[in-house]
């Protein structure tokens, strides 16, 4: 749960949960690397971020690069383009169906999973525990690619 990677920016917890999300999106687009939140005082890592460290309750938190490699914790493939009352597919992904949401555990950050996107043929051989490479696109979407 703890890590010592370098901070990219301080988390603006004073801006509240919505402010944190705005800061996250901006940083993801400018740095183009997957991010997690880390406590500056006790080094606990979180994702999604929190308004203070839930381990030591410090408000000194920072954004940290999560590295570009991880392991598949779990995943979900969307098979249909039909919008039904119980599911709402993001419009920008409709022409990518089938696509897969992959929850990735960064290789050296324990206890954290980052939601990512996988498209294309590689989905058919995807399995829990697989190693993936992460890449942040211009729009801020984090794409996962099967390694090897």
């Amino acid at each position, binding site marked *: 749960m703890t890590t010592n990677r370098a901070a990219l920016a301080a988390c603006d917890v004073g801006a509240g949960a919505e402010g944190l*999300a705005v800061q996250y999106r901006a940083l993801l687009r400018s740095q183009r690397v997957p991010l997690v939140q880390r406590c500056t005082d006790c080094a606990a890592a979180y994702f*999604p971020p929190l308004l203070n460290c839930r381990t030591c309750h410090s408000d000194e938190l920072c954004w940290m690069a999560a590295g570009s490699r991880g392991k598949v914790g779990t995943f*979900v493939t969307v098979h249909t383009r039909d919008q*039904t009352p119980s599911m709402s597919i993001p419009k920008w992904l409709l022409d990518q169906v089938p696509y897969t*949401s992959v929850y990735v555990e960064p290789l050296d950050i324990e206890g954290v*999973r980052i939601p990512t996107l996988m498209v294309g043929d590689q989905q058919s051989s995807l399995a829990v525990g697989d190693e993936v490479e992460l890449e942040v696109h211009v729009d801020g979407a984090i794409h996962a690619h099967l390694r090897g």
Partner: protein
Amino acid sequence: MTRAVIAGVGEAALTPQGSGRAADRMAVEAALAACRDAGVDPHRVDGVVKYTYDGSISTMMLGATLGAHDIRAFVEVPSGGGSSVALVDIARALVLSGRAEAVLCLRTLLGEEWLKQMTMSDPVRPYYLDGVNYLRSSGWTGYLHLFASLYTEYAARYPSMDREVLFASANLMRENAAHNPESLFKDQISREEYFDEAARTVGPFTRFDEYASADLSCAVLVTAEGLSGDPAREVQIVATTQSHGPDPKTWFDLRPTSTSYPESPSSWAARAVYEEAGIGPQQIDVATLYDCTTFTYLDLIEAFGLCEPGDVAGLVQDRSLLATGAMPVNPHGGDLTCGYSAGFRHVLEATRQLRGEAHNQTKDPEYALVSAPQIGPTSAAILKRSARR
């Protein structure tokens, strides 16, 4: 010491969604039905517990409409399915503390409205935004996404859990439903229909793996023991709990970002209720488990120790989960066939089973387990039939 019981249950007649009925009037009907069932004068209701997200009626309006002499506690409980048993937990606490003696818990749902709420943000649920902020860019579609991700993680560990098991699970619950006149889906699904690629939605699921959608209103009256007109029909509440689990998240849809599996809010809740009840899973005679998908309740069977980890596919295949089987689960057919009640109707079914009054009655049950889903916050209870029956 005062003990708390479920003295009465009641509901407005269940119909498919789009009935056009007024939600507030349905809530009043259910409340009066629960009081009538208990033989308790509605004027005596002195506590109301409702879901925050249930906008059918305010606690103030309900109190005024019942003509309650003196309501001493109004409580609203957040969350959706996770809170199904939390209402009973809180009502019980009010009774045990002496703060109230007749506490009405209720849930009204208009199917169409609920489905709309599922995919929009709402100021009453601010952390829903964490779903939008951190999951949407990876293609998150709503609650099915969450339960499909739990399925994937389970099936990776126990490959016996495949789509054949979900197909059998859907039909088992429809077989239970066939004995319940109130169920909306009683016909068996054919193999051709289920495995038609056009029926697939998200993850392992098809359109047959989701809960039915109905207009319904359910009420449960929790009272001090002996208050009702018929103590032999009072069902004892022997254990209740709520849990946010080992890795609490700011919104339940974030659960796939947790690495705690197989520990979950439900594994924590299971330990708490068995410890308080002083019994083990082998003493549970019937279970009513949250079933928003055909996988959700199967995973809960294991979380609550009703079988060994990895063995639930076998219980489905040998039909143990039918009302006549070795481990009856959701004898009424659950929310999968009766319509989504956020799992609250499971409290009514467990009560009816322990009174021997259910449509699809199991054989002489003494203990019933009721549980909300394996995401936090969750809740669970163990109920016991009256010693006077």
